[in-house]
């Protein structure tokens, strides 16, 4: 209870801080939403009029307080570019990003856990060497590069999907998921490689401890020791990594969205920054901050589930 309360307070602190930072950033950088709208047709009078209309002429702090007040009431405002409520815009795009993140994350799990276990089980062997080498190479390949390679291979050569042929979930759910499979894969690859490395080293560390020996002494097989005893303990450091990976994927898949032509949250964020559409930027960043913190919180909870010792320490 106290723990949750503390977390909540720090969540609010972070949100306040980051929202202010964003507001301040928009006050500092050149250009404003009015100019972005008028473009090369801007004249000083029209610019002034539009600024007045958009409420940009009040001092920055006052504008921030007004935004904050609305935000607290649950009103995210309207997009300056699109003239639609920010909440509608985000609600429309969120499922796309969530699905892609979810799929990528599941792939990371599906790839890394078996490979990590396999690698640790045969540590020092040929299979282990191959997996480790593969890991190192995958980690060295820049993400957008792997995105292009995947597009080339699966899209242009194998024709498993149509590059740029994104369809929305409402239009064609199967097509939607089928398409997202590939960008998700591109996101998952390097993360999975790192996860394999983390899991492998955690497993090797755990296997070197005393309690697996105790388990062997009771007549457990190798697999029983690995799955029944060691895995759960080895997951504790890996969990931290998974948590960070999850926030990373959620907040940082802009490049992949771009390469695969997916209109996700990342893309909206980028174009909104470029258009100085700060109600949208604020909302998305709030969302991301909340996600980062909620994921951290969930990881903590899972930690507590996995590691009984944490109960007494805090």
């Amino acid at each position, binding site marked *: 209870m106290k723990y949750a309360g503390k977390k909540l307070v720090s969540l609010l602190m972070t949100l306040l801080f980051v929202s202010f930072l964003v507001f301040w950033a928009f006050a500092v950088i050149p250009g404003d939403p009015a100019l972005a709208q008028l473009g090369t047709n801007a004249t000083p009078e029209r610019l002034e009029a539009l600024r007045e209309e958009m409420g940009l002429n009040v001092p920055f702090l006052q504008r921030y307080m007004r935004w904050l007040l609305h935000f607290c009431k649950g009103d995210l405002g309207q997009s300056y570019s699109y003239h639609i409520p920010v909440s509608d815009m985000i609600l429309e795009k969120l499922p796309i990003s969530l699905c892609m993140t979810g799929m990528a994350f599941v792939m990371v799990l599906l790839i890394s856990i078996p490979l990590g276990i396999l690698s640790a089980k045969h540590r020092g062997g040929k299979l282990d060497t191959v997996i480790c080498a593969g890991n190192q190479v995958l980690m060295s390949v820049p993400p957008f590069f792997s995105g292009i390679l995947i597009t080339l291979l699966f899209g242009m050569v194998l024709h498993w999907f149509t*590059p740029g042929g994104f369809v929305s979930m409402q239009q064609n759910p199967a097509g939607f998921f089928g398409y997202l499979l590939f960008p998700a894969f591109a996101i998952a690859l390097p993360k999975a490689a790192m996860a394999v490395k983390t899991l492998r080293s955690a497993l090797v560390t755990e296997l070197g401890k005393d309690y697996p020996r105790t388990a062997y002494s009771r007549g457990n097989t190798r697999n029983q020791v690995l799955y029944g005893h060691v895995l759960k303990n080895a997951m504790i450091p890996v969990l931290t990594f998974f948590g960070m990976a999850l926030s990373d994927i959620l907040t940082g898949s802009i490049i992949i969205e771009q390469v695969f032509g997916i209109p996700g949250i990342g893309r909206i964020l980028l174009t909104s920054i470029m258009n100085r559409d700060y109600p949208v930027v604020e909302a998305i960043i709030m969302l991301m901050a909340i996600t980062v913190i909620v994921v951290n919180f969930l990881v903590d909870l899972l930690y507590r589930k996995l590691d009984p010792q944490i109960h007494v320490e805090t």
Partner: protein
Amino acid sequence: MKKAIKKGILGLLVITTLTTALSGCKGASDKTGDENSSHITVGIAQDLEESLNPHKAEAAATREILFNVFEGLYKPNCDGELIPAVAKDYHCSEDGLAYMFILRDNVMFHNGNTVTAEDVISSIEACADTSDGTPLIPAFSNIKTIEKADESTIVITLAERDADFLSYIASVKAAILPAGQTDADTNPIGTGPYRYVSRSVQENIVMEKFDAYWGDPAYIEKVTFKVCADPDALVMNLNGGAVDMMAHLPVSQAQQLSKDFTVLEGTMNLVQAMYLNHDFAPFADERVRQALCYAVDKNEILELVSDGKGEQVGSSMFPNFRKYYLPSLNDTYSYQPEKAKQLLKEAGYENSLRFTVTVPSNYPQHVDTAQILVEQLKEVGVDVAIEQVEWNTWLSSVYSERQYEATVVGVDASNLTATAMLSRFCSDAGNNFINYQNTAYDTAYQAAQLELDDAAQTKLYQECEMILAETAANVYIQDLAEMVALRDDYTGYAFYPLYVQDIAKIKPVAAS
């Protein structure tokens, strides 16, 4: 037992992902099947990031799409002529001040209502409203009165004569909207051949053929304008079959298209130049500006940027504006590096001129051109640095605040008037972002504005162009080549002298 269940679940998961993957492929391939004939996917490089109300549409990218949905009383055709649209005819009074428009009968809005004189009046008034200072269409500040003569006749009276008035009336910005519509920003209702269906931010805009259109019906039932934000993924999107048509393709990308595509060649209808800030001390000296012009080899630029395609320009007018365009100005400054050095020496900048050229990073062709300029100017001892900025920083720092030394951009026309290209070089023009000060120019332009005779007016505008060329106002380069890729299943693409993607003219090959 427990284990068995776990394995089962895992298996299920794998199977589900596999089946969705497979059905995903099927879904994608379906699209390129039979339905093709009545559906086209048009790629657009950026989303329409503003209001969908045509009166407020400022970006060319928005206007060229909204052209399919909206019409004014008149509209341009692909030859640059103005043809009747919502109005079927007009009469201009002898003094050129009163325009009488006769409305076409039974023109329907997409919401099923008939266009009335009230709709027309409210639309024109909205564009002419001066309560914000400048009206939405600045030229409409000239409108004195808008009156309804009868149910199908509107009379617009001007304060001063304006030969270009009909061009303004024919722009998409002066489109006719239903009177009293409150949600025009997000729900466009017009009278054009296509009806707006839906939009998804950064994803697409969908339109359907409007069956009750007054004119020649469109051929294709459904159009999806798909946002393809990554220019590098574009070729794969086209070749892979996700996009059927794409305009504004650079030559480099068009060359990589598969043989399923017809590549049509046109120009972008803009004047690409290295625009010089005349307030930057060295550029106040005409000799320096001329030296830069002599130092630039336009042929090489065209060769490297677009494989020799595109049209060279020598002043602020592009070739498709045939009425005003003067091809002879292209040769005002031929490539003479020695002469350039000579002029620089005279001006006292021998091997000592250095400046920064600011380029908006979202236009790769301008960045490429800038790179070549840097190399070419290096030859004559001018040291140029490139600074890329994103578009809004460019708008703010370069265009609005004029804090720059030189910039490479393309300037286009928002309507079919010479004013659109030339007004900005008047000394006191609000958008004179190069700070050009030339009394001869101001006089000529003023005279052209007041001239009643069309031929004489054209002459005066051309004189303006000549002054710009002779004073080397900017380092004029080219009207960039643009390629339009159209899948072989379609035909009928038409180039306009303005930013227009007229989908109504495109027809499926099978149907033709």
